[in-house]
């Protein structure tokens, strides 16, 4: 028997406090992120049981789901949103948990601020009451979304009880083509294996495509792991990872850095390690992607037509329901479809590289008259970078405005709701019915595609707008 283990095994096994026969492992959690939506009931639970927060210094709170993206200096209008934000603040104060509330210069989307401040570090276990916690897997972390009962569990014991998931590896070798972004890689994988294809698995992404990807790109890919049903996705930490973490505010310094780095360098899958499932794709097969249905698996290359019901893996009834909601037909081309809204932002694509990509396409062009564009940075730090790098000037000259950070129209818990019946091309992660507002119709795509749509008003292949030598 080989002792070869996977990256996932190494991180998981290093965090098992107790193993229960025919039961879950008691898994120690290094970092716990909380936000205003899924934490209030957990704090109430603690109070009812009379249990304190065990390690408040391991929990980090930020306000994001409900925050407005305009006039953040003024009181939040929706009383229910204001109430949740107030509950987060009072719970954080009561238990001594650090909080980046609305108005804090460090405030932003939970999965954006964690990495950019060095709270997220290789080899950690990270949980949050938000399914896109899988984002932090980009650093070689076991990171996943949890429910409110589990938030209460982590607050009270710094542990959760989880059966060990099965392991899958997805390998993509080769070089990505022109105009293909990490978001396209994610949407491509999900369309190939369906929205439930990785349920029960934790996925490791391997191969040249991920090795050559920036940390922000890796975060985009890992962020979408949940959209194929996976509990999480992870990428082995390497020099790209270490360079990203080094110097961040909460990253280890000096001797602590050296000690951590020595450990982080051991975090990779051994050559002979065995996965429960292996999938391989070729980078050359991936073109800019777009979704047409009501789950992220219902997507295709942007130049393709909407597939026939007989060609998709979801049940025919569900597929037809999905197309009816979108008011699309089987066989319809996507190129040229008129769009009403463009949303750039979310924990998937609200980072600086996403704004750079968007700006590279719209530079020197004008926003299409039929488009309402909501450009929402993932954090105040991203917002500052957008200004410092001159990206804001490019956007303004093209007729776009920048909003203030938050989850925004990704899930429409604030005022940013796509109206019923309208079509939105969104860089966010979900195209579920009503996700971006009751009756809203969402097409998921990359920042390049969003930018191409924003200047043409219709679904457009961004490669047609990319001049030679432009950022590929």
């Amino acid at each position, binding site marked *: 028997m080989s002792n070869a283990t996977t990256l996932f095994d190494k991180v998981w096994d290093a965090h098992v*406090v*107790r193993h*229960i*026969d*025919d*039961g*879950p492992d*008691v898994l*120690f959690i*290094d*970092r716990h992120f909380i936000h205003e*939506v*899924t934490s209030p*009931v957990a704090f109430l*639970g603690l109070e009812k*049981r009379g*249990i304190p927060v*065990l390690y408040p210094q391991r929990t980090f709170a930020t306000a994001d*789901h409900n925050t407005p993206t305009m006039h953040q200096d003024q009181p939040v209008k929706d009383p*229910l*949103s204001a*109430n949740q934000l107030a509950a987060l603040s009072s719970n954080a104060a009561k238990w001594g948990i650090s909080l980046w509330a609305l108005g804090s210069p460090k405030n932003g989307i939970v999965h954006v601020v964690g990495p950019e401040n060095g709270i997220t570090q290789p080899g*950690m276990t990270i949980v949050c*009451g*938000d*399914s896109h916690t899988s984002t932090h897997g980009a650093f070689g972390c076991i990171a996943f979304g*949890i*429910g*409110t*009962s*589990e938030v209460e*569990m982590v607050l*009270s*014991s*710094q*542990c959760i*009880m*989880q*059966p060990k*998931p099965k392991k899958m590896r997805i390998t993509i070798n080769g070089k990505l083509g022109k105009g293909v972004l990490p978001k396209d890689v994610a949407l491509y994988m999900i369309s190939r294996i369906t*929205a*439930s294809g990785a*349920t*029960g698995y934790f996925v490791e992404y391997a191969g040249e495509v991920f090795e050559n990807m920036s940390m922000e790109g890796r975060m985009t890919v890992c962020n979408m792991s*949940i959209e194929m*049903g996976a509990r999480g996705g992870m990428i082995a930490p390497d020099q790209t990872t270490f360079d990203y973490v080094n110097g961040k505010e909460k990253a280890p310094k000096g001797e602590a850095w050296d000690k951590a780095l020595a450990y982080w360098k051991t975090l990779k899958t051994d050559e002979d390690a065995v996965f429960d499932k292996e999938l391989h794709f070729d980078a050359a097969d991936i073109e800019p992607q777009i979704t047409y249905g009501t*789950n992220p698996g219902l997507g295709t290359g942007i130049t393709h037509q909407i597939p026939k019901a007989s060609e998709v893996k*979801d*049940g025919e*009834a*569900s597929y037809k329901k999905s197309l009816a909601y979108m008011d699309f037909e089987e066989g319809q081309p996507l190129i040229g479809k008129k769009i009403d809204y463009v949303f750039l932002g979310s924990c998937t694509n609200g980072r600086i590289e996403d704004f750079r990509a968007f700006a590279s396409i719209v530079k020197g062009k004008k926003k299409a008259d039929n488009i309402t564009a909501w450009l929402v940075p993932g954090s105040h730090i991203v917002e500052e970078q957008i200004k410092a790098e001159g990206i804001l000037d490019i956007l303004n000259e093209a007729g776009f405005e920048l909003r203030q950070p938050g989850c925004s129209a990704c*899930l429409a*818990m604030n005022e940013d709701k796509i109206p*019923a019946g309208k079509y939105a091309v969104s860089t966010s992660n*979900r195209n*579920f*019915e*009503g*996700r971006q507002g*009751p009756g809203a119709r969402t097409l998921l795509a990359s920042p390049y595609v969003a930018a191409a749509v924003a200047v043409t008003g219709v679904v457009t292949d961004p490669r047609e707008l990319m001049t030679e030598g432009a950022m590929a």
Partner: protein
Amino acid sequence: MAYDKFTVLTSTAVPLPIENVDTDQIIPARFLKATERKGFGDNLFRDWRYNSDDTPKKDFVLNNPIYSGKILVGGKNFGSGSSREHAAWAIYDYGFRCVVSSFFADIFKGNSLNIGLLPVTVSETFLDKIFKAIEADPKTEIEVNLPEQTITILATGDQESFDINGYKKHNMLNGFDDIDYLQSAKEDIKAFAEKSLY
């Protein structure tokens, strides 16, 4: 005790033969603004259940008086999407105690077990039999026997066994939850935390 004990449940069932029922449909995001865990059942399947003027949609199953019961039967990949536990709360608060499907999303399944809502995974074939039995007679009773780990369509006698983790089964039978267990493991946890790199 965190929730009601689950042993044997015999009930009629409500059929929802749709695949990929995501948690945004079970409880849309705009209803997640409460800071207390109550009243979510009123907005269960809100946008499938009501028109925009709040009148009930006649063709949605929860509005059809011939269907009722404590068991919800859904299509494959039930509960995908957001990790919101509110989805499980809404189903429980509405009055369901058990959800049957051929495939559950992981987080939804975990959330359900944590609050005393039993997710029962059956084969595609058996799921189809349940849908057909309810279609033939909406008063069809289904027995979910947790101690025996069986699900039975009483009218036809069709039966299948289902899997459940032994620890979770013990918790469901007794109404315990993980927090009760973790409180008893605190000394081990503290010792572990002392050695942590982070």
